[in-house]
Each structure stands twice: as C-alpha cells, then as structure tokens.
C-alpha cells in the first residue's frame, strides 16, 4: 500500500472513530430507554443508507467529474470541512467552548428519552428506530463525506501514477469499518458511553489532516507543484499544528475565567483562603 493510501486509511479511521463514538452514545440511549431491538433496527437502516450514499456518489463522481476539477472540488470541500473541525477544536482547547463530554450527553439524552416514553415497549418502537436511524445517519454522513473525498483522491492519484484500478474508496471504507467495529466491541464490553476515547484530541488531529490534505490537493488541482511532492504533506501538517497551538495560546486570554474569587484563592496562601471563608 502506498503512503497516500495509508494516510487515507488513518484519516478515515480517526474521523470515523469520533463519529461512531457519538452515534454509539445515542444508540445506547435508545437501547437502554426503549429497547435494543429498536436501536439496532434504526442503526442497521442507517448503515445501509450510508453504504448506498458512498456507493452512488463515489461511483458517479469518479465517472463524471474530470480529474483536475475533482482535485479542486475535493480540496475545496476538505478545506471547508477541515477548517470547521479545526476551529471547533481550537475553541475547545482554548477554553472558549466546553469539551465534548459523552457522559453528560448520555445523561441528558436519557432524561429526554425517559420524559418522552413512560413504559419500555418490547416490540419495535417507531420513535426508537427513528432516533437511532437519525443519529447514526447524521454522524455517519460526515464519515461518508470523508470516505468519498479521501477515497476519490487516493483513487485518482493511484490511477494516474501506475494505471491500476482505483481502490481509494475501498481503502477509506475499510478504515471507517475498522473504527466502527472497534467502537462496537468497546461499547459492548463496557456497556456505557465511551468516555475514555479522546474525542477532542481525535477531532483536532482529523481537523489538521483534513485541512492539510485539502490544501495539498486543492493546490495541486489549481496547478501548484508542491516542494518535494507528497513529502510536503508533512510540512503542511506541521505548519497547521504549530499555527493552531499558537491560536490556542492567543485565545486562552479570552476564555471565561473561573469566578475571580476562586482564581484568586487558588493562587494565594491557605491563610487567605481561610480568611475568605
């Protein structure tokens, strides 16, 4: 497998892991509050819909969009998507937005679902199926987008470099599938929201990856010849990483501080803390 194929596999795996963890929380809520039959039915329907979306759009785009235009479109979309994720991550790390907390989301969802349904039905419940379907489909759409864009670009690169049949979408889909299986196994083992998965970090890494690949492929499509070709991807990733860390440092000054008295107490002696009591 080429270096670019590995990059596609890893990016698809990481992005999918984040989204699957989020979807898993909702499926778990439906399973616990309504029943597992409804939760699994909704999930299965969403997975089929997502596979169809990837197959139809992936095939159609490869067939009808010329390679250079494809690079520009894919690069443009990846930059948009990547900057959105990177912005969210920077805001979280700077303390301007709360960090994603699966347990808190789980508790809130459980409360909302219990408020809706009083008795746990044993049959397939349409509300449960719809909730599981909607959440898996919405979270999965981001995965589908990443699988399609990364897969298409990898296919295009491979096709032009050695004339073999494109298999980028398959590679990206395998990465997503591996993440899905891992999340399901972990979830089935702990039977609780997956709090230990470092979602915020993963989202940050994926944000950098998407922006890096988007810039690289978009630039290539426009006609830029990058210094040392694919190796420049590493330079771009490092640049985005360093720059985003600098942005986090800058924005930390704007983060809402803990109540001033508390921050003041933290910095001062125990005698002063006693005095404030």
């Amino acid at each position, binding site marked *: 497998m080429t270096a670019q194929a590995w990059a596609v596999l890893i990016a698809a795996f990481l992005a999918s892991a984040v989204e699957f963890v989020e979807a898993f929380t909702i499926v778990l809520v439906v399973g616990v509050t309504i029943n597992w039959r409804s939760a699994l039915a909704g999930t299965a329907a969403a997975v089929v819909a997502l596979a169809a979306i990837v197959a139809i759009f992936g095939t159609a785009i490869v067939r009808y969009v010329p390679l250079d235009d494809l690079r520009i479109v894919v690069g443009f979309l990846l930059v948009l998507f990547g900057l*959105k994720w990177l912005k969210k991550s920077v805001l979280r790390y700077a303390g301007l937005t709360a960090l994603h907390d699966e347990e808190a989301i789980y508790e809130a969802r459980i409360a909302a679902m219990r408020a809706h349904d009083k008795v746990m039905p044993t049959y397939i419940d349409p509300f449960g199926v719809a909730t599981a379907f909607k959440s898996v489909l919405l979270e999965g759409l981001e995965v589908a987008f990443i699988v399609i864009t990364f897969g298409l670009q990898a296919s295009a690169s491979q096709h032009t470099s050695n004339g073999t049949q494109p298999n980028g979408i398959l590679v990206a889909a395998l990465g997503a599938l591996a993440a899905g299986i891992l999340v399901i196994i972990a979830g089935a083992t702990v039977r609780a929201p997956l709090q230990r998965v470092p979602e915020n970090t993963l989202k940050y890494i994926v944000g950098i990856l998407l922006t890096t690949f988007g810039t690289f492929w978009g630039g290539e499509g426009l006609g830029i010849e990058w210094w040392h070709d694919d190796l420049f991807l590493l330079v771009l990733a490092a640049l985005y990483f360093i720059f985003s860390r600098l942005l986090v440092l800058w924005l930390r000054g704007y983060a809402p*501080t803990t109540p001033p008295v508390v921050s003041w107490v933290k910095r001062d002696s125990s005698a002063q803390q006693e005095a404030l009591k």
Partner: protein
Amino acid sequence: MNTFVRAIKATYNFFAGDAIILTTVMLAFALTALLLHMANAPMPLTALLFVTTMMTELTATLGREVAGRPKHRLSPSGWSDLGDVDLDTGIPAAGPVDGEDYSAASFPDGNNAAGTVSDTGVPTGLPFPSALQRQTRGPTVGDKTITED
C-alpha cells in the same frame, strides 16, 4: 422556511457553517487560480500565499468568535484579573471590578467598600494580603494579636 431553503442551509452548515470560512476559502482558491494562470506568478510565492491564506481564514473566524470579549490578563506577574488588584504590589488594575469580589472582601480596618482606600493610601479593589493576614490573625492592639478563646 420552505424545504429547499432548509436543504441549502443544512448543506451549508454541514460543510462550512461559517460565512467567513466559506467566503475566504472561495477567495483563496480564486486568487490562486488567477495568480497561476493569468498573472504567471512564481510558483513558490503562490503556494506560500495559498497556505498563508488558509491560516488567515482560521485566524479571522476565531477572531470573530472572541470579538467584543474582554481579554483577561493572565501574566504570572501577579495581576489577578481585569479590575482586580495586583496581589503583590497592591496596585489596582484598570477596569470594572466584579460585584462578587466586593461582597466577598472584608477588612478589619473598614476598607471594604468600593471607592475607599486602604491604609497605604492605595484605592482598594480586592482585599490586600496584608489586610487578610490581619483578619486571619484577628484584630491587634499595638503589636499584640487579640484572639478569641
């Protein structure tokens, strides 16, 4: 809002969700294409400009997020917060002081109200360490501390 507009809005939110990102990325791509194909600009310069534009976009959208928010001084030199006093020197920082701080502040020498001055003549914002130490020790007569048994 009809279904079509809703679908457009959902698509926009899915990909960008941010007018600054969308507009500037479009501009960056258009500008790069113009520079390369119309102006025949040097490749390294165009590439550098393309990457720099991406970083500027991120800075701009994040800058908008914090626009209007006060920047807190978090320097290790001892400034506690905007509007508080420097706990080491007792010099008040500029700006408003949180009302909670005033209610929490209490001085044995009575300098616990907004607009008053401490016994050093410096206007008070938050309790001075010296005042708090006195409060912890209890009121003093001469050099002796009066304690309650």
